[in-house]
């Protein structure tokens, strides 16, 4: 969680640090990110699936009238303050780490009973709140009218109807929040006493319990410095320190500690209040929304939901492959025609030593062309398809349909998203495992991801087997790889301690995707891919170039021969190609041919002259399943740490070698 460090230190004289902070809080799928985009004039990564905003993000926003500027902090969608939407930390900790001066709660104007409990929980913290009753257009279309005046009376807080998609009411809600935040800032500067000044809403017994808990905070230990949130660990949940620092009222802390006790009573109040402020028209106006509701129901029913899922999944892959393939051909040939000759001439002019120049060209020309002809076409296309599915709300339907199947490997249905992404490129798929709830689930999913052939490895399987042994054999190789992947998942589910949390998930409503959002989201993810994968791919290419051009690859052959020759029954050059494909997976085949030509002469350009179809089968299975490429390894390390990254890679290597040896014996290679 870096968000709490982004805030400039409070130097007193500065402007940014003096700005009041408004936190944006809301349940998943309430359109909070779209709301933020409207409020700040930029598109946040939005998604019509729970939990796309995983980390707090702050933006400086200016109000149109006198309310002035403020920091607007976007937080992950959450069902309650005690929920853990980002994995380990309870939401209230993320929220209070931002030290908000006011909370802008985004709620669904059409389903107040469901959103009021979170509003009430925020109100209980003792911070000023403003309610944005969002999705007001959808509510109106369904014939739901909200008495915002009455709701404001009940909450003792401003309520504003808003439509995030077109911006209606957003500025007004924000102004109100900034005004309250500034007022609290000024009051604190003058060291005014804090009070909530709100009427008790719960039954007497519960109010008494809150009061008793609050008194325990008022008398708790010595005050701790205002900025030492880190010291909060002294009192177990850190609430005492927050009260002492003035970030939270004693009553607020008490309501956080009693969160589970208060949840039920809050829903009671919510049902009662919603009845008072909602008016439902029952004339036939709600035709469009019921059509959408019915569609949502059909999408999760076994019929026609399951066939629809198969069609959508295949269509997504087909679109990615077709558009990606076309783009790859166009960009690849453009690069070869226009850029490669220039690069070759340029490098040879600048670097007179031919060996060093060649090594550099491996990286600059070979590495960049891989990025241009694999990365951009397949990964970007896939991100667009994924963002479209996500924004339409269909992904949660798919997750429900496949849930039981994924349970077999200890994963929820949501894991379908990163695994689908893995067939494009493993790197973004590993980031994609963030949609999963626990580290355990993320590790299992990441193992499956690294064993799933990406577009580069799929190309190797097809190119090695189809021309020599026929497309059927290539398909069989994919079957074996799929079985090994599932086996790896079952194994990981048994080996990694812990168990799968049982599923309770709100389904995203189906909505028409907003094209600018889809493009903005796909682009922001693609930028992430280029930033993280590209440098590693280029560095790997240059290292491979140096090893190849200097002949340093050959001594390795001697070391690995017992394993490669004895266990897998493959020629030494194949072993070398397997080892060094780590640096460039998509070159697993070209590398094999290049090394073979050096060793056996020009005739070896044809694979069939030095390897049998059975040997090639063993080779592609081992190459595809074993050790992810260097970019994937770096991503695993960044997400889970080096120990876990090496353990995952070691597991894939063990599975690949084990299966390779068995295949070699079954196919009569050894």
């Amino acid at each position, binding site marked *: 969680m870096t968000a709490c460090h982004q805030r400039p230190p409070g130097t007193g004289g500065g402007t940014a640090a003096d700005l009041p902070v408004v936190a944006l809080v809301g349940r998943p799928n309430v359109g909070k990110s779209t709301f933020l985009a409207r409020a700040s004039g930029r598109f946040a990564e939005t998604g019509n699936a729970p939990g796309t905003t995983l980390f707090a993000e702050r933006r400086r926003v200016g109000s149109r009238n006198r309310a002035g500027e403020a920091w607007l902090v976007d937080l992950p969608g959450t069902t309650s303050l005690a929920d853990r939407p980002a994995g380990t930390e309870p939401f209230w900790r993320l929220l209070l780490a931002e030290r908000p001066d006011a909370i802008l709660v985004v709620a669904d104007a059409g389903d107040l009973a469901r959103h009021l409990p979170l509003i009430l929980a925020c109100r209980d913290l003792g911070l000023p709140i403003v309610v944005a009753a969002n999705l007001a257009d959808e509510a109106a279309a369904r014939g739901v009218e909200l008495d915002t005046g009455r709701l404001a009376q009940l909450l003792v807080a401003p309520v504003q109807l808003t439509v995030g998609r077109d911006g209606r009411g957003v500025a007004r809600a924000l102004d109100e929040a900034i005004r309250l935040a500034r007022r609290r800032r000024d009051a604190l500067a003058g060291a005014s006493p804090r009070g909530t000044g709100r009427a008790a809403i719960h039954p007497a017994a519960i109010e008494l319990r809150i009061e008793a808990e609050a008194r325990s905070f008022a008398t708790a230990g010595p005050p701790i410095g205002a900025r030492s949130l880190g010291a909060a660990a002294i009192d177990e949940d850190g609430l005492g320190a927050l009260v002492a620092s003035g970030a939270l009222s004693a009553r607020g802390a008490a309501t956080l500690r009693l969160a589970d006790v208060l949840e039920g009573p809050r829903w*009671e109040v919510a049902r009662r209040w919603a009845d008072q402020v909602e008016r439902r028209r029952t004339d036939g106006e709600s035709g469009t929304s019921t059509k959408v509701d019915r569609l949502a129901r059909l999408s999760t029913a076994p019929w026609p939901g399951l066939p629809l899922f198969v069609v959508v999944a295949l269509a997504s892959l087909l679109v990615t492959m077709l558009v990606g393939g076309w783009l790859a051909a166009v960009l690849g040939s453009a690069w070869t025609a226009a850029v490669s000759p220039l690069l070759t001439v340029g490098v040879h002019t600048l670097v007179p030593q031919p060996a060093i120049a060649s090594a550099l060209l491996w990286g600059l020309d070979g590495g960049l062309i891989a990025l241009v002809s694999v990365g951009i076409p397949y990964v970007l296309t896939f991100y667009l398809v994924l963002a479209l599915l996500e924004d339409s709300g269909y992904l949660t339907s798919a997750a429900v349909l496949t849930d039981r199947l994924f349970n077999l490997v200890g994963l929820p249905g949501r894991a379908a998203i990163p695994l689908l992404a893995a067939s494009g490129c493993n790197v973004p798929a590993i980031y994609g495992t963030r949609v999963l709830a626990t580290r355990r689930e993320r590790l299992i999913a990441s193992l499956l991801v690294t064993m799933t052939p990406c577009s580069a490895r799929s190309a190797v399987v097809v190119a090695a087997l189809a021309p020599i042994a026929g497309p059927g054999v290539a398909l069989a190789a994919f079957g074996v790889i799929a079985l090994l992947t599932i086996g790896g998942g079952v194994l990981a589910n048994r080996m990694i301690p812990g168990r799968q949390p049982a*599923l*309770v998930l709100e389904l995203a409503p189906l909505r028409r995707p907003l094209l600018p959002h889809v493009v903005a989201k796909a682009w922001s993810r693609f930028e992430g891919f280029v930033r993280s994968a590209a440098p590693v791919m280029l560095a790997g290419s240059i290292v491979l170039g140096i090893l190849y051009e200097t002949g340093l690859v050959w001594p390795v052959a001697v070391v690995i021969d017992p394993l490669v020759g004895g266990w897998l029954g493959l020629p030494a050059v194949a072993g070398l190609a397997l080892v060094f494909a780590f640096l460039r997976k998509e070159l697993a085949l070209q590398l094999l041919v290049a090394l073979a030509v050096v060793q056996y002469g020009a005739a070896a350009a044809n694979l069939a002259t030095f390897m049998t179809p059975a040997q090639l089968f063993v080779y592609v299975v081992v190459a595809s399943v074993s050790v992810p490429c260097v970019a994937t390894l770096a991503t695993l390390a960044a997400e889970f740490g080096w120990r876990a990254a090496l353990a995952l890679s070691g597991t894939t290597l063990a599975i690949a070698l084990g299966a390779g040896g068995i295949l070699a014996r079954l196919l009569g290679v050894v």
Partner: protein
Amino acid sequence: MPRAHPVLTLAELPVGSTALVTAVGAEHGPALAREGLGPGATVTVDAHAPFGGPLLVGVGRARLAVARSVAATVEVAPSAPAAPPDRPFRP
């Protein structure tokens, strides 16, 4: 507390039926409460996902997927199959 009749759980309700939640087991109580599935809530069973997958239930305007093992901890009392006002197409 002794019971004269066996308790009915959400997992046993037929598709299309509506019921009132009377009690929720301690283990999943908080998670269910946050989704509005606590005592006093009215639920409608929309569908059962294939392959023994989760139950799809309606709570107010929202639709939830609830694992069968979790649904088995939710005690319910069947209520009249009156459609909520915003679901007019359901009989």
